[in-house]
């Protein structure tokens, strides 16, 4: 699922954001490491982002997760500069977009980035098709070929037949599919998704996540996905960043964060998760082929839950683990059950 060595598309470096009267005057305090509550008490300024350094990899889904108030929505708006940082750099393919002037920035937003919003933000006075064509229309492209492209994406998100409807005539799930089609029709390489599925009810959310993953398998876009839901984060993420009170608590591969939470905050978060469903065999197996196995072989990317089902709950079995037809390690059911309760389990 995840090519390990991917190049960094967007790098956020030393990013600070302070809301208040005179944010720049606060910066020295921040470099000294003042925390959010202290700052708010002393100076009426609100610290939204505190020394953010994250990498966003080309062609992968980077999920930024945090509770409300953690600064995740603020962070994603820095990437297309809907919000200006107080200090810091945002490097895109090595160019600092903070140096862009107004028209360069507009070009960037028109051609290279698209965005999906929590509250859909569809134009109520335009039809579904017109909404979908927003990006090409803004760019001033030929309407006919854009329409063809737009209709293709609407079909792809199962909205065929609703092209001439108005957004208010659609359900929430359908509206967000229009939002998705709008972002896809822009053909931008980077997609920003701000709590895109949070406003949907659970069943529809799950089906949207599946649709989204399906699309990503073909498209390999660079996606920054914001969510407050750890289950969603673990399901979608190739790279997971956890924010708390404006700073990055931990970032890395989701399986890694799940097995080795670096912070009590994340531990608490992770404790509610159905580990059997989220953890993959790859993450808990023993590498190499040194051990004898009692039963056949299993795929490295299936979940522990699936393996327990294969083993019919028998704790004495062990399996060969293969990836693409090649044996890469072994796993015993005891290891599986240990992984379900322990954080310090051996990692691949």
């Amino acid at each position: 699922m995840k090519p390990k060595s991917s190049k960094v598309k967007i790098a956020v470096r030393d990013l600070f954001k302070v809301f208040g009267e005179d944010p720049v005057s606060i910066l020295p305090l921040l470099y000294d490491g003042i925390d959010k509550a202290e700052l708010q008490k002393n100076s009426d300024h609100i610290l939204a982002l505190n020394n953010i350094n994250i990498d966003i990899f080309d062609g992968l889904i980077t999920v930024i997760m945090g509770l409300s108030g953690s600064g995740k929505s603020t962070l994603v708006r820095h990437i297309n500069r809907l919000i200006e940082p107080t200090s810091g750099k945002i490097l895109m393919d090595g160019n600092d977009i903070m140096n862009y002037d107004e028209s360069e920035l507009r070009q960037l937003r028109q051609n290279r980035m698209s965005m999906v919003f929590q509250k859909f933000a569809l134009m109520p006075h335009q039809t579904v098709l017109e909404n979908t064509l927003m990006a090409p229309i803004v760019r001033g492209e030929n309407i006919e070929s854009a329409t063809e492209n737009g209709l293709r994406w609407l079909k792809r998100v199962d909205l065929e037949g609703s092209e001439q409807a108005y957004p208010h005539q659609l359900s929430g799930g359908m509206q967000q599919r229009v939002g998705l089609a709008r972002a896809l029709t822009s053909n931008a390489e980077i997609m920003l998704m701000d709590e895109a599925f949070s406003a949907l009810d659970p069943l529809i959310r799950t089906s949207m996540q599946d649709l989204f993953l399906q699309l990503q398998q073909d498209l390999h876009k660079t996606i920054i996905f914001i969510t407050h839901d750890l289950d969603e984060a673990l399901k979608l993420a190739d790279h997971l960043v956890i924010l708390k009170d404006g700073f990055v608590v931990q970032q890395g591969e989701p399986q890694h964060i799940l097995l080795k939470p670096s912070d009590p905050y994340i531990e608490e978060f992770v404790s509610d998760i159905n580990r059997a469903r989220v953890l993959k065999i790859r993450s808990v197996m023993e590498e190499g082929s040194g051990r004898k196995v009692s039963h056949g072989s299993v795929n490295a990317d299936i979940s522990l839950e699936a393996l327990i089902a294969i083993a019919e709950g028998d704790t004495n079995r062990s399996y060969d683990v293969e990836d693409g037809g090649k044996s890469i390690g072994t796993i015993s059911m005891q290891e599986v059950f240990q992984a379900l309760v322990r954080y310090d389990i051996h990692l691949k």
Partner: protein
Amino acid sequence: MLSYEKVFDSLGLREWCNESKANTLTSLSELRGDKIEWWQVPFPSLDNLHKACSSIPQTRDLTASLEAGFLAVRPSLRFILDPLTQPLSWALDYTLLFFTTMPWWALVPLILFGTQYVTKSFRITFLVALCFIFFLFTDHYTYAIQTLSIIFVCTILCTLIGIPIGILMSKKDSAQRIITPVLDMLQTLPTFVYLIPLIFLFKITEAKLYGLAIMFYSIVPVIRLTNLGIRLVDKNLIEAADAYGMSPRQKLINVEIPLALPNIMAGVNQTIMMSLAMVVIASLVSAPGLGTLVLDGINNLRLGVGFVAGFGIVVLAVILDRISKTALARIDESREI
């Protein structure tokens, strides 16, 4: 009235005071040399101070100098404003001429078609037809058409001028800070007060005199509601427009104005109603139409004439309001935001 003389004496200003000769009328009590009790001491107003010291101007000098000042700048003001406002005169004169010379059997159906087109409601078209039959039958048709023509021109011009001003206010807080007090003033100024400087500036026979009075009064709501409507556009939608790289112009045309349209139309409705209110008062300065009949009723105590014309104005108000509100409701309906 010797109460303040001592003050000037004690300040050593007596000589300065007497430089200009006192020409104040002397009241009977002063002639009698009545003593002023402490509780009768008047407020040191301009007039009272003048009595004690004739170098101090009287209040009537203040109003007189204001008038003189206005008359002094009048030629230069006229020089600038006359050509600027001349198109308004032409628009009013030619529109009046056009609609009053058009035969009734052509104009009335045209108005009914127009009503049907914007409201898509047979009930309202029927109401409008009844009203015009009333005007035709009572020989008030020409007056009503004159009033309508003036409202027609003034509303179109107010909309054309007011919407850009409203947009400017919504975009620039500084513009809003400056323009809002002006709008407040235009709305609170008694309607007759508008007429005073205009009468000085323009000839009473010129159409722009009443045209300007009507427009100053009725442009306010369309400006205010355009500003409000654009400011009330959902921030999420503005953010989406920004995220897809719309230029300020694209944002205005594709997002802000269409979404503010219900509010803007409500402003236009208010503007129409206020022009109707003002067109009656403007008959004081030669605006033709039903207002002249009302004025006639007041001036010559012709109760019946005034009443019928007044009823005609109410009828016009009702149909204008119904038509514009129904058109507005149609816009809202097609949205259902």
